[in-house]
């Protein structure tokens, strides 16, 4: 008998598949899709889009372009701001049958502490993901997530502000991602998410000018799966925290591989654009793949590569 139940640090998950921030919006999906999302939520936890202290309109369009087996985006953290998120969205998310993991990003290092503090008292929030790695914004001058010292400090500020389950989301756009994972661990993270999107760019086939309004963007989808799998493998071997693996997860076979590479849970992003509610389907298929391999639990699977 295969069981998919798993523990991500202090969070109990009914299966190891969650959504990646910015790619699935339950409040919108509930309006548009034929599905009873507040009763049968397809993922084992819900991660809303990243919010920041101030509302952000995001980058100039176009913001999307498809590349070979990949997607470039330059959304630029368009969001309503953490205050509206807390006032309008959180109460509605309270009735979800799964843990909610808020995602926050800072314009300055201090913001990670301030946002965490604002969420600290909210019961609806089970965990907080610090997005220190969005490639589409230059908050705080240069990317904070490329600098171990500042990543550690942002984490420590959040850690001091809240006792919630704290996840730091790492960027692959660095010489050594392990160094950043170690910085997050030193700062007091409970978990790391690996990986955010990979720096990329596309030109319009006809005009030969950058397609994206923001010139460059972040690459996601199956194209980056090998990059993500390596990062998960390296990070999970180097630090003692649980890892949420993501980057191109599209099939149950991908879930299996990320878990084997060392992830304790796996997030689905771009694949939600091929199938808007992949969580439950992938979990079902994962059971089959584990069964034929004689693997009974996620625990047995994690890190077996």
């Amino acid at each position, binding site marked *: 008998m295969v069981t998919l139940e798993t523990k991500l640090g202090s969070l109990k998950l009914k299966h190891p598949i969650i959504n990646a921030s910015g790619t699935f919006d339950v409040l919108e999906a509930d*309006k548009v899709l034929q599905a009873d999302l507040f009763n049968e939520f397809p993922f084992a936890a819900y991660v809303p889009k990243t919010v920041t202290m101030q509302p952000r309109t995001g980058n100039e369009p176009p913001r999307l372009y498809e590349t070979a087996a990949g*997607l470039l*985006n330059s959304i630029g953290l368009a969001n309503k701001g953490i205050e509206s998120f807390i006032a309008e969205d959180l109460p509605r998310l309270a009735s979800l049958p799964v843990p909610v993991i808020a995602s926050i990003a800072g314009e300055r290092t201090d913001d990670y502490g301030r946002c965490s503090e604002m969420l600290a008292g909210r019961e609806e929030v089970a965990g907080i993901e610090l997005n220190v790695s969005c490639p589409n914004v230059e908050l705080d001058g240069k990317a904070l997530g490329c600098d171990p010292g500042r990543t550690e400090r942002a984490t420590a500020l959040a850690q001091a502000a809240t006792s919630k389950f704290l996840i730091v989301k790492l960027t692959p756009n660095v010489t050594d991602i392990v160094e950043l994972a170690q910085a997050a661990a030193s700062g007091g993270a409970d978990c790391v998410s690996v990986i955010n999107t990979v720096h990329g760019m596309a030109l319009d086939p006809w005009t030969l000018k950058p397609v994206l309004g923001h010139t460059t963007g972040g690459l996601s989808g*199956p194209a980056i799966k090998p990059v993500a799998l390596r990062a998960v493998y390296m990070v999970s071997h180097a630090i003692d925290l649980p890892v949420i693996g993501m980057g191109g997860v599209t099939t149950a076979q991908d879930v299996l591989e990320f878990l084997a590479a060392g992830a304790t849970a796996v997030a689905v992003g771009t694949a939600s*654009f091929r199938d808007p509610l992949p969580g439950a389907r992938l979990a079902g298929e994962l059971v089959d793949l584990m069964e034929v391999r004689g693997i009974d639990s996620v625990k047995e699977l994690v890190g077996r590569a």
Partner: protein
Amino acid sequence: MGDLPIPASLHDCPVVESRPVGSYRLVSFVAREVAALARPGQFLMVRAAGYSLDPLLPRPLGVHDIDSDLVKILIEPVGRGTMSLASLRVGDRLSVLGPLGNGFSLTGAGPALIVGGGIGAAPLTLLARALAERGRHTECLLGFKTRGQAVAAELFRNADVEVFTEDGSMGSEGLISEPLPECLRRMEAAEIFACGPDPMLAAVARTARDCGASAQVSVAAHMACGVGACQGCVIKTRDGYRRACSDGPVFPAEEIAW
């Protein structure tokens, strides 16, 4: 625009016909639920089902026509996504999410002018029929680059259609923005419905304002999710960025910041 949103879902649909219409491709597939629900101006996110991860994502395509259980789309092969969809054959399967978006609002009254540019004509056939069914006097102005595209005008069947081509190879020569004001006045049209390239839509918006008509325009944008989740398909409006997929694709012309 449009009425209450109708729940969309993911459908696995067999292709039953694929044939060229000039330089476009008309593809019909079985999709009972979509056929029952879709309204004029709504769209679908369509991709080939199968092993390949390239093209990766579905492409937004307007609902071109409905014939009992069959849904029809009209494809202009411009890039790898549309080319691969245009190369599918009978028996291949599509993954289809929809119907999506608000569609055109049909609550208005009075004579209606439909304006289509290039492949923007695709979703307007359904609209022409719906307006006629509502007893509204409807005329269509369709503009194309050249004859190869303009033959798609035949898909409008019984509708009152006038065709323009930029090179004069079919119908009258010129851009539709030229006859537009005159046509509006002659028809005493109360409302314009338009879909096509941005410069055309901007011309429609200007003319409508000048002539005191209202206009609904269906805009285009690159999309990923199609359901309002990713913030990727935004266009500039007077209220700031709005999503083409879930706030649109149809907007009152005066809301768009051209």
